[in-house]
Every structure is written in C-alpha cells, then in structure tokens.
C-alpha cells in the first residue's frame, strides 16, 4: 500500500518514511513514539480542518476516549496491543457519531465551540466514572502484549507501533485523494454549490468527522499503550488545542505538515520538561499567537508556496482553493494558498 504512495509522490514519501524509520536512532525513543502518535493525530485533525473546513476543538474526546478504551482492553483482556488500539479507534468512531451528528449542522466558530463542549462532557464523565477510568489517578500499568514478545524497550516498541501510524497516514492520504475527498474540498470551498450539485453535505461532513475521529483513536490508543497509562490529561481541552496548534504550525491542509508541527511541539515540551519548566503554556501559547498572527501558512505550507512560486503558475500544487469566492472571504483553509 505504501507503494502507491511512493509512486505518486516519490521524494517526500521516501524522505518521510526514512525519517520515520530513523527517528528512534536520532532522538530518545519514547519521544519518537510520542511524535509518531501526535503526527497521526494532527493528520486526522487536518483531514477535517484542512480538507473539510471544520475546526474541531474537541478531538481530545476521541484521542482520550480511545486511550482509555485501549488501556482497558489491554489491562483486562490481555489481548495483543494491536487489538487494544483498534478497539480504541472503534470506540472513538462510535463516540463521533452522535457528537458529529449534532455538530456538523453548525458552521465555523459554532462548530468549534460545540465540539469543545462535547469533549468537556467526555472529560467530566471520565473524571467521575472512577471505577472504570481511575478518576484522577488514571489507568496505570497498561501492558504491551504482542504474542509474548518483549516490547518493554521503547526502541523496539516504536517499530511495533509505527505500522499503525504509517497505515493511518496512508488512509488519510487515500481519503484526501479519493473522489470522496474531492467532494469534501468542494464542501469546504463552497457548501452551497456542493449542495446544489446534489451532495448530501451534512452526511459527507459527518463521515469525514467519524473517519477523523477513528484515526485520532488509533493515535490515542497507541499513545496510551506506549506510555503504559491513560490519564485525564488525554481528554482535557488543552489536548484538543495542542493538536490544532500542531496542524496550524505545520500548515493547514497539507496533511504532512502536521507531522512537522507535532515533532516540534513534542520535542519542545520534552526539552522544557527536562529543564524543569512546568508552565509550558507560556511558550506554546506565545508560539501559537505568533503563528496565527504572522505565519498562517505554517511550515509545510510556506515551503510549498515557495516551491510553487518558483515553479511558476503552470505547476500549481494539487488542491488549490477555488477562485470563485468573494475576495474578502479569507477562510481558514485559504491561508495556505
């Protein structure tokens, strides 16, 4: 499956794969695993934000819900960890159905607020349902079972978990490139026209929301297994904000950019934590404000813009925003253009 990706975009795909394989040699392996999980999470959020035009501020519900589910499956059933991760993803997808159903009818800022509120509801449930989630202590001692293999070394676990992340990226990439993905982009750019062409806009949005939640669930489940615990932090709204920050920093609507954003933020948080600086919000918040104010294309978006402008207008990057919008409606996804 990776082969078709290689055939279409050889250089970035090979480079990305090489970096992903080399990562635990370059940096501390548990941090490498964190980066991989957050990268997939960011790609899942970008699927919604960059390609459907929906800013979800509640994806912590899916990441955290899957983290708890994967943890519970691994703790209580002793199934191999891939089953736990997929179970987490399944729960995330199921949770996304009612939340998405109620949220996709709203647009823009309303959608962000409502998803945020529903995620907070999941947080409160996790906090109060102590018998299952462990409340403020979280779930501890989650095993990493894989047919008796010893995966306690984070270095080896990275390679056991990486296929999930790569598969998740592949699915996200396939979705974006599929006819379904093209419809999503058209809904982002001009929902009225998409509806006029006969597409059930809300149903498309809901499906995108559920798919995005499922991918976030894979990432969150893997995160819980890799850390050996799941805590309330995973369902808290700062987690939703952090992943959005990674997407914006990497470049909205670039899919791969989120991985760059994830790498930078995770690495930064790790350095700050090592230095004993706990109030990371001061730094990450400032970066966020700066990016939003002056660097809205993000890293990957800027690179792509420079490449595109060098190559001239003839070789424009693939999903260009349509030209038939009013000039002043600078929507979120336009920043990359």
């Amino acid at each position, binding site marked *: 499956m990776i082969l078709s990706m290689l055939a279409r975009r050889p250089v970035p795909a090979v480079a990305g794969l090489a970096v992903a394989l080399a990562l635990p040699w370059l940096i501390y392996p548990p941090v490498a695993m964190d980066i991989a999980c957050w990268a997939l999470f960011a790609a899942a959020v970008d699927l919604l934000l960059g390609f459907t035009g929906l*800013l979800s501020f509640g994806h912590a519900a899916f990441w955290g819900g899957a983290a708890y589910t994967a943890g519970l499956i691994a703790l209580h059933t002793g199934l191999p960890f891939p089953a736990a991760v997929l179970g987490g993803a399944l729960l995330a997808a199921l949770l996304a159905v*009612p939340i998405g159903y*109620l*949220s996709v*009818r*709203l*647009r*823009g*800022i*309303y959608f*962000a*607020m*409502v998803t*945020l*509120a*529903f995620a*907070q*509801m999941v947080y*409160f*449930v996790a*906090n*109060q349902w102590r018998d299952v989630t462990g409340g403020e202590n979280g779930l501890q001692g989650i095993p990493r079972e894989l047919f008796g293999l010893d995966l306690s070394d984070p270095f080896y676990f990275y390679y056991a978990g990486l296929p999930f992340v790569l598969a998740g990226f592949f699915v996200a990439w396939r979705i974006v490139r599929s006819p379904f993905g093209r419809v999503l982009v058209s809904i982002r750019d001009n929902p009225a026209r998409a509806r006029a062409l006969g597409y059930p806009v809300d149903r498309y949005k809901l499906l995108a929301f559920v798919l995005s939640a499922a991918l976030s669930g894979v990432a969150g489940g893997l995160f819980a297994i890799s850390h050996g615990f799941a805590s309330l932090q995973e369902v808290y*709204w*700062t987690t939703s*904000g952090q992943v*959005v*920050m990674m997407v*914006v920093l990497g470049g909205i609507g670039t899919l791969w950019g989120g991985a760059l954003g994830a790498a930078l933020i995770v690495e930064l948080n790790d350095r700050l934590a090592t230095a004993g600086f*706990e*109030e*990371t*919000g*001061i730094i*990450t*918040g*400032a*970066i*966020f*404000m700066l990016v*939003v*104010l002056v660097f*809205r294309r993000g890293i990957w978006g800027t690179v792509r813009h420079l490449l595109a402008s060098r190559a001239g207008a003839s070789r424009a990057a693939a999903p260009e925003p349509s030209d038939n919008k009013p000039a*002043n409606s*600078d*929507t*979120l996804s*336009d920043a990359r253009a």
Partner: protein
Amino acid sequence: MLEQAFNGLVSGSFYALLALGLAVIFGMLGVVNFAHGAFYMLGAFGAFILLDSFGVNFWVALFVVPIVLGLAGIALERLFIQRLAPLDPLYNFLLTFGLALILQDVVKHRYGVQSQPYPRPFGGSIDLGLFTYPAYQVFVLAVSLAVCGTVWLVLTRTRVGMIVRASTERPELTRALGIDVARWVSPVFGFGIALAAFAGVLAAPMRAVNPLMGADLIITVFAVVVIGGLGSVFGSVAAGFAVGLVSALGNLYVPALSQTLVFILMAAVLLWRPAGLFGREEAL
C-alpha cells in the same frame, strides 16, 4: 430544595456575566473570545493582589480591577484582534486560545496551583423567609442581576446601545448611515473583558482563587452561550441563570450528572433549535 435553587441562581450569576461579555464581543466583532475565562481568573487575582500587596479592599477592587483589565482588553484588541479581523473569525478564536494558555500559566508560574485566600467583605446571613442565606451570595446575585439589567437598558434605550446594536446586525448599512462603526469596536471589546474581570472580583471571596478557575468555567459558558443563542444578549443572560438553576436542581436529584447536565442540555437544544433558544437561524 429552594436553597439549592438559590445556589443555582448564584452560580448562574457568574455564567450570565461571562456569557453577556462573550455575547456583546461576539455581536460587535464576530469573535469568540477564548481568553474570557482567563480574564475572569485575572479579575479574581487582581482583587487578591490588590488586597495582599497594597491593602486595597474589595469595594475599591470591584471598580479598579475591571477598569484596568478593560483597558488591557482595548490594548489587546488594537494590537492583535484587529489585525485578524478581516480573516476567518476562527483565527481570533485560536489567537485568544493561545493568549488564555499564556495568562493561565503566567499566573501559575507566579502563584502555583493552590488556592489563594480572600476574605468576604461582609459576613452575616439574610433571612429569606423559608431559609437563611449567606448575605454575600445574595449580594452577588443582586449585583449580577443589576449589571445585566443595566446593560440591557443601555443596549435598548440609549443612543450608544442603538449604535452598537445596529453595527452588530448590519455593519455595512450602519456605516453607510454615517456612523463610525470601527470607533466602537475596541470599547465594546474592552467592556466585555471588564465584565469578565468584574465577575472575577465578585467570585474571589466565594470561589477558590487559583490559576485554573477560569479554564473549566469558560467551556461551560460556551455551552451556555450556545444554548442561549450566540450573539443574542438576552438569550445569553437568560441561559446563564437557567443553566445555573437547572444544574443545581439536577445536582440535587441526580448527583452523578451535576457536571455533565449543561452539556446534555446543550445537545438537546441543538437537536431542537440549532441556533439556540433565542438565536436567529440566519446567524448560523
């Protein structure tokens, strides 16, 4: 039970003041201010710092803190919010989210997460016929109702209010009628922030003063605003008190739902009226 209902109305006072500030800001600027909870927290800390370091009492703080933070809000609008105003409003949502993280962690860095003590400006209790109630809580409820009522009167009965409402509903047309809409944007933003700070000062003597006090509250207030109808000033205030009341009564009968009830309420409202109870469908 009546006492529980009264507790609910007192929490509702804070929801209403915060939701009111969010609603006027949203109405005028189209911006949802994520940092609103952080400014509420700063209001409480402002009162605490004034008392702790300068010996300034509650009554002075109740005026000084909202004015200072309101001016800070005006500066914030001029420096940052305005630059993003022509873009998608989600950018300002993200900007204020970043700001909320900064403000919260700056205070945490300085004061830690433990709660700071703040004495009540007056003790005693009031006999309300069926039960006695702490006088300070009665005062909070009365002040909140008075402030919300005053804002309502200003918006509906004065020239300033007329301009603000007109700019909210039809900015282009208002501009065409020769009114300088842009002039009112910063003051309205500052006023919304001042309301949050005012609520924070009011909360200092009865709620735990700590850096996280605004973080969870703001999301509940978002739910309140969605229930009331974003951009509807009356809806926000009414929903604020209603949510306080319903949560308190819910707590009495189904304690397990005490924190989630407001979100269940929001889901129900979204099913029935996506624009909120008092919102207009066109605003969606």
